[in-house]
Every structure is written in structure tokens, then in C-alpha cells.
């Protein structure tokens, strides 16, 4: 991938002295400048067009990007900070690992600026496990994403757990071959992220608290909003699309499917097998577990138990068995959301 420089074309759009005889010419020149930017990929918010027959393998196509999360479904992605934890996660049956510099709980405790994990650590993890490796980038940080793509990370999480570098814009994810996952608290947020090219959505929850309440709230809001779309007239859905700031075809598609058009995982505060099973029951396609595993004092057992409960969520007997594999005495402490100051909330970052 080559990222075009941000200011390409700006010098070509010089201001002209506008006389009436020149006005037509002026607009033509503006259009030329816009075309130039478009050629450089800067207004491209959509997938590449493919030929009917593909003779030479085509990488990073829409199907390949959206297909990757499909094979994560029913699985658990675990936050890890080193190869040893990644090994424990793989043995326990994790479907993937997410490499972080600090677990969200520690991010919360330490404060400061949270950035992308150490590239060397990510590469070591990629060399030791056979399962996919994801990593987080700061919201809006194109270059952290470009670095992760170039070292070969399987999926990028544009995450509110790290400190955003852009308060207004997320990354244009169509520019990348690697699939992205984004957090969302409601349907509007989820569809905006999909419009920007996210191949997967997860609830934001409130990461690093060991409290699943916010993940439940966000999942229920998304489900409720999709249900209400289904009962609307087409013109009302048109209005909602404007309100959300997304193409109305995407709203129509969501209404017709009765679910998000991409894979949707639960994340934020999942700490026990019962938490994971609850999120699956609410309609999540799988779960991300952050601090819940490696902040507990029985990570091995807990990782295996959460994997089992996520796969077998529709069978309470097996979930009970999974819950019995862990001890509540060893669960992470957890934080009451109501005790957090407004500026300590992670979920409000990037709307």
C-alpha cells in the first residue's frame, strides 16, 4: 500500500482572480483539482471493483476482508501483552489474540498516553502462535495502521482504549488491505464505522473495568435500534440514514437482515464464562476478553472456561461446567462504572 501525502493537489488548486469571462474556467480547474485528489485515492470510500474472472490472485478484496471475521465467529479474542500469554491463550483455544502494550485495566490505572504496542513484541507473538494476531491503533492514526499492515498483522482494532489522535475523524479503512474492527455503542456509530470500511464491529462496553454492564447496554441498544428500523416506513429510514450520516442503502440492508451487515462481537468488561455466554445470548457473534483473563489469578483455567462458554453458550449445562472451572475469588477486582469520573470513560472517545 502507498499512502498518498495528505496535501496532494492543494497546490494545484490555486486561487484565481475571478472575472466573469474566467468563471467557467475557474470551476473547471476546481473540478480538475478534485479529480486529481480522487485519482490519488483520497475521496475513495468504497471497495475496489473486481474483474469478472480473476486470473491472478487478488489480495485484500471485499470478500477476503469480510470473510476473515466470519471465521472468528463463536470464538474468543484474548488481549495479551507478551508471547507467554499468547501461548496460554492459544492452548486454551482462543480464536485469536490481540497484542497490547498494557491491558486496559493498567491503561486506566497508569493514565498518560496509550499507544500502539511494541512492534517487536507483535512480531514475536506472530512467530509463536498459529492463530491470527490482532493489534490496536489509536483512533485516526493512519501511520500506526500502515505500520501494522506492513508487518503483517491479521486485523487492526481502531480502539478507544488507546488515546485518540483525531477527535473528529476515524481512519478511512478502505485505503487498507487488512481488515479493521471498530467499537460502537449504538447503531449509528456502527454504521458510520462500516461506511468508513470497518469489516467488523464490537461493542465498546467500558474496557478494563471487569464490569460487563456497559457491554450489555451497548449490545441491547444496537439490537433495539435494528428492530425499530424494521418497523419504519422507507421514508423514515431515509431520514434515519441522514441522521446517522450513512448511505441509506446500508440502513435498508441492515433493516432487511435484521442484524448488522458485518460480524459483531461483544467487548468491554467480560471477566467470567457467564459474562461471555450472556453476551452470546444477547446476539454477539463472539467475544473479546481484555483484562478479564490476565488480570485474574487463574488465567489458564479462565481462558479455557471462557472459550468453552462462548462456543456452548446455548447449553446452560456446559456453561455451568465452564463457570465451575474458575473461582470467583480469583476474578479481577472490577470497577463500578458509577465511581468513574466522566473524563475516565473510554467509551465516549470517537463517535
Amino acid at each position, binding site marked *: 500500500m502507498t499512502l498518498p501525502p495528505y496535501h496532494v493537489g492543494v497546490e494545484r488548486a490555486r486561487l484565481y482572480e475571478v472575472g466573469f469571462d474566467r468563471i467557467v474556467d475557474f470551476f473547471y480547474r476546481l473540478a480538475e483539482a478534485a479529480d486529481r485528489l480522487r485519482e490519488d485515492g483520497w475521496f475513495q470510500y468504497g471497495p475496489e471493483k473486481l474483474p469478472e*474472472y*480473476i*486470473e*491472478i*490472485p*487478488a*489480495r*485484500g*478484496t471485499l*470478500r*477476503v476482508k469480510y*470473510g*476473515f471475521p*466470519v*471465521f*472468528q*465467529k*463463536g*470464538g474468543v479474542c484474548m488481549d495479551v501483552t507478551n508471547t507467554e500469554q499468547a501461548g496460554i491463550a*492459544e*492452548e*486454551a*483455544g*482462543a*480464536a*485469536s489474540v490481540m497484542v497490547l502494550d498494557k491491558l486496559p485495566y493498567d491503561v486506566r490505572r497508569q493514565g498518560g498516553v496509550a499507544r500502539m504496542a511494541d512492534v517487536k513484541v507483535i512480531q514475536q507473538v*506472530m*512467530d*509463536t*502462535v*498459529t*492463530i*491470527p494476531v490482532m493489534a490496536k491503533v489509536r483512533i485516526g492514526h493512519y501511520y500506526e495502521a500502515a505500520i501494522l*499492515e506492513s508487518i*503483517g*498483522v*491479521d*486485523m487492526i482494532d481502531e480502539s478507544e482504549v488507546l488515546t485518540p489522535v483525531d477527535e473528529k475523524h476515524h481512519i478511512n479503512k478502505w485505503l487498507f*488491505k*487488512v*481488515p479493521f474492527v471498530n467499537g460502537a455503542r449504538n447503531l449509528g456509530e456502527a454504521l458510520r464505522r462500516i461506511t468508513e470500511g470497518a469489516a467488523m464491529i464490537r461493542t465498546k462496553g467500558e474496557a478494563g473495568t471487569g464490569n460487563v454492564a456497559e457491554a450489555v447496554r451497548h449490545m441491547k441498544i444496537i439490537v433495539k435500534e435494528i428492530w425499530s428500523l424494521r418497523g419504519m416506513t422507507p421514508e423514515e429510514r431515509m431520514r434515519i440514514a441522514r441522521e446517522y450520516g450513512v448511505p441509506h442503502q446500508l440502513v435498508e440492508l441492515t433493516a432487511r437482515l435484521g442484524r448488522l451487515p458485518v460480524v459483531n462481537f461483544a467487548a468491554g468488561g467480560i471477566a467470567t464464562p457467564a459474562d461471555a455466554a450472556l453476551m452470546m445470548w444477547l446476539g454477539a457473534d463472539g467475544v473479546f476478553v481484555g483484562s478479564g483473563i490476565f488480570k485474574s489469578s487463574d488465567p489458564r483455567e479462565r481462558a*479455557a472456561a471462557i*472459550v*468453552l462458554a462462548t*462456543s*456452548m453458550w*446455548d*447449553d446452560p449445562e*456446559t456453561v455451568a461446567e465452564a463457570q465451575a472451572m474458575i473461582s470467583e475469588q480469583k476474578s479481577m477486582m472490577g470497577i463500578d462504572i458509577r465511581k468513574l469520573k466522566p473524563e475516565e470513560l473510554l467509551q465516549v472517545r470517537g463517535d
Partner: protein
Amino acid sequence: MKVGIVALQGGFCEHVYMLRKLAEETGWSIEPVLVKKPSNLRGLDAVIIPGGESTTIGVVARRIGLLDELRDLLESGLPAMGTCAGATLLAKSVRDRVVGETRQPLLAVMNIEVVRNYYGRQRESFEVDLKIPVLGEKPFRGVFIRAPAITRLWGRAKGIAELDGVTVAAEEDGKLALAFHPELTGDTRIHRYFIENIKR
């Protein structure tokens, strides 16, 4: 006929969709059954093992006692189709391109060696039109996502599709191992081929 789909992790809904679509196209009566516990294996005419993470599916299947029961059924001749991770689980020998030997639970019922992540990581994932002679002239769109490849075949196993001289689909006594994902394309020809073979 009842076709079981192992539904512990991965893209099992996509196979259910494909079987329903195939039933609509052909008028055959195909009943997809989700297989999560050993008791779901009763009365199946065939089983599909979907794409996903082979370590996850193997670990969970072993823990709930599905792995051994399914292996016994497969060894006594139950037809099976494995896509991607499913193909890995069917193979008798499995290696990873980077990590090498993997110590993962397997069904180990086909005389093939599978190399996981053969084509590389997600960044190297691709789609391409494959020539599969048993399906006829029209190319089949193969979607390869962190795909494995079949690097060795012995005994009665034979390759049915190749990409640049490497086997990407193999067949042995009613068992089908595919490195790619026919369930993502909406093209039912591979599912049809699999079910037709059972009907015979």
C-alpha cells in the same frame, strides 16, 4: 438426508445457508443439523466441518467429548467435507508454515498432509478463479483466507484441484478436504458434488 455441521466455532451458518440454497436449486430434501454435542451425531448421513480456527474447534470438541465420537463415525465411513480449518482437522499430518509442528487435537482420518497458513497471513489472503475438472468447465471462485494447502497425499487420497501446482482440494472415500471457502461465494457446485457422491 441429514447433514451435520460442526457448530462449535467458525463459519457454520454459511454452510447451513449453502445447503438450504442447494436444496432449493435441486429439490433434494437436505436437512442441516448443527452438531455441538455427541448426541447431535445420531442419524447423520454426512458431516461438514466449517472454516474457523482449527485449534479452537479441536480443543472445544475434545473437551465436550465430540472429537472421539466423530472420529469413530468418520473411520467407519461417514462422508465428510472440511473447508479450511475443517480440512486441517481431517488431515493425518499437520504443520504450520512458521511455527512448524503443532500439538493440536485432530480427527486425523485422511491420508493428507496439511500445512497451515501456507499462503501466509491475512495480508496475503486472496481470491482467484480455480479450474476444478470434476465440476466442469466453468471456473470456481476460490476464496483463500489464511488458507492451508495440501502438500502431500498418500494411500487412496487424490487431489481434485490445484493452484500453481499445489493441491488445494483432495478427496478420499467420500471425504473432501478444501483449502478454500466455497460457502462464501454462493456457488453451490462443490456442495452439490459432495451430496451427489453420498446419494450414490
